[in-house]
């Protein structure tokens, strides 16, 4: 145990707790955006996933993602039920913290990723279908892609793809899968013919604020040490979130004539998404540019999906898919070895090849996530049925799926 560093371990465990908070925070962020008849069901999606993936991860998810490599594609089953994952560090991943601390930090990433998708199928998905989808998606999409990018021997890691905290692994996978889910499930009943409004904007702002708070663990924790790199990641994370919130609010102001509170909240999340892959590689000036890009491009992405009449109910693709892709490519533009000596420079620092590698990573992750998600949804639809019956959708999912009501006054 002489290799364990107390400061690094304390920071990583605290970061794991911060990232854990993000999933219920996401529940509040999404919960405020749906109608009051669906708020419990929406929050339940996030809370249930916290429980489900916590168990899946220790049983087989961690082994598939980080276990000994098989062909660059998937980890082995050697670490099932955390066999061999103990209090000693694993120098392949984090040399100064117990292997279990690294495992539980990564668990919280595996938890929040499928929870992000739930915003796309909000207000119409059958709970049973959601349960099966989450378990299959975590196993067949998240775990392999995490191995590709972060696992020792993973093919994208070997290629040199940079993803500090999950721009491709977390946000691109979930954002693309959300778009596929929205297309396969179809539009909500009444959309376009009756008002479908957020029932509690204050809940959404609270959720966004807690997400921002937790994101410091997400990004600065990904340094895996409590030194200068963590501090740098912390600063650029805050800067990009703030800049994207300002930008989104401004763009929506120019577009619709008023500075939207919900827009500022969504913008902050978009900025946090975009800085995620870059947070360990870029300086604060790049963070400002990344935030400006996130606020603009993600807003445009959402307008486009609405124009195409895709009912991505809570704009998961626009924020996480578009933001994740922008962040991954921006990493290829702005990465600097002056920030992180272990990383390659990006395009603006004389290494255009890095942008090409990032493009390969983005393309591969989009294709894989889209195809596997489509197959999973079609199979579930065949055996379980994806959507609730029409009359249940009218009554609301709180009553029909959970036999509960969020508000009694």
């Amino acid at each position: 145990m002489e290799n364990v560093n107390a400061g690094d371990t304390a920071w990583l465990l605290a970061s794991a707790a911060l990232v854990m908070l993000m999933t219920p925070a996401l529940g509040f962020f999404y919960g405020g955006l749906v109608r009051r008849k669906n708020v419990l069901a929406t929050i339940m999606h996030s809370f249930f996933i916290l429980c489900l993936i916590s168990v899946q991860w220790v049983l087989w998810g961690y082994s598939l993602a980080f276990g000994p490599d098989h062909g660059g594609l998937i980890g082995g089953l050697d670490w099932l039920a955390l066999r061999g994952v103990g209090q000693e560090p694993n120098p392949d991943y984090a040399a100064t913290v117990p292997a279990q601390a690294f495992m539980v930090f990564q668990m919280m990433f595996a938890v929040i990723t499928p929870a992000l998708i739930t915003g796309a199928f909000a207000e119409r998905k059958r709970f049973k279908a959601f349960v099966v989808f989450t378990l299959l998606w975590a196993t067949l999409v998240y775990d392999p892609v995490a191995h590709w990018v972060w696992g020792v021997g993973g093919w994208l890691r070997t290629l040199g793809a940079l993803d500090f905290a999950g721009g491709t692994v977390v946000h691109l996978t979930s954002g693309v899968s959300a778009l596929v889910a929205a297309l396969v499930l179809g539009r909500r009943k009444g959309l376009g013919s009756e008002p479908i409004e957020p029932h509690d904007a204050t809940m959404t702002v609270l959720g966004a604020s807690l997400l921002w708070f937790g994101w410091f663990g997400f990004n600065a924790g990904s340094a895996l040490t409590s030194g200068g790199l963590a501090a740098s990641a912390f600063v650029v994370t805050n800067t990009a979130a703030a800049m994207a919130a300002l930008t989104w609010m401004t763009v929506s102001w120019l577009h619709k004539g008023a500075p939207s509170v919900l827009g500022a909240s969504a913008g902050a999340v978009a900025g946090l998404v975009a800085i995620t892959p870059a947070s360990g590689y870029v300086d604060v000036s790049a963070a400002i540019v990344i935030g400006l890009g996130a606020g603009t491009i993600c807003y445009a992405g959402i307008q486009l999906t609405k124009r195409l009449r895709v009912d991505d109910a809570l704009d998961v693709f626009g924020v996480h898919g578009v933001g994740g892709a922008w962040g991954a490519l921006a990493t290829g533009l702005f990465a600097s070895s002056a920030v992180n000596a272990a990383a390659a420079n990006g395009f603006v620092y004389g290494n255009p090849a890095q942008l090409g590698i990032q493009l390969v990573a983005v393309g591969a992750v989009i294709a894989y996530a889209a195809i596997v998600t489509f197959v999973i949804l079609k199979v579930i639809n065949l055996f379980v049925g994806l959507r609730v019956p029409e009359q249940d959708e009218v009554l609301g999912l709180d009553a029909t799926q959970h036999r509960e009501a969020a508000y009694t006054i």
Partner: protein
Amino acid sequence: MEFLAFGSFAILVVAWLVAPSKGEVVAIEERRKAA
């Protein structure tokens, strides 16, 4: 990069100065009454 960063922020400041005030105040009030 510093030039880009200052320029990005300056764009926002100018936008706040020229941003219009319009919208659906009446529609929001009507929705509140209907609720």
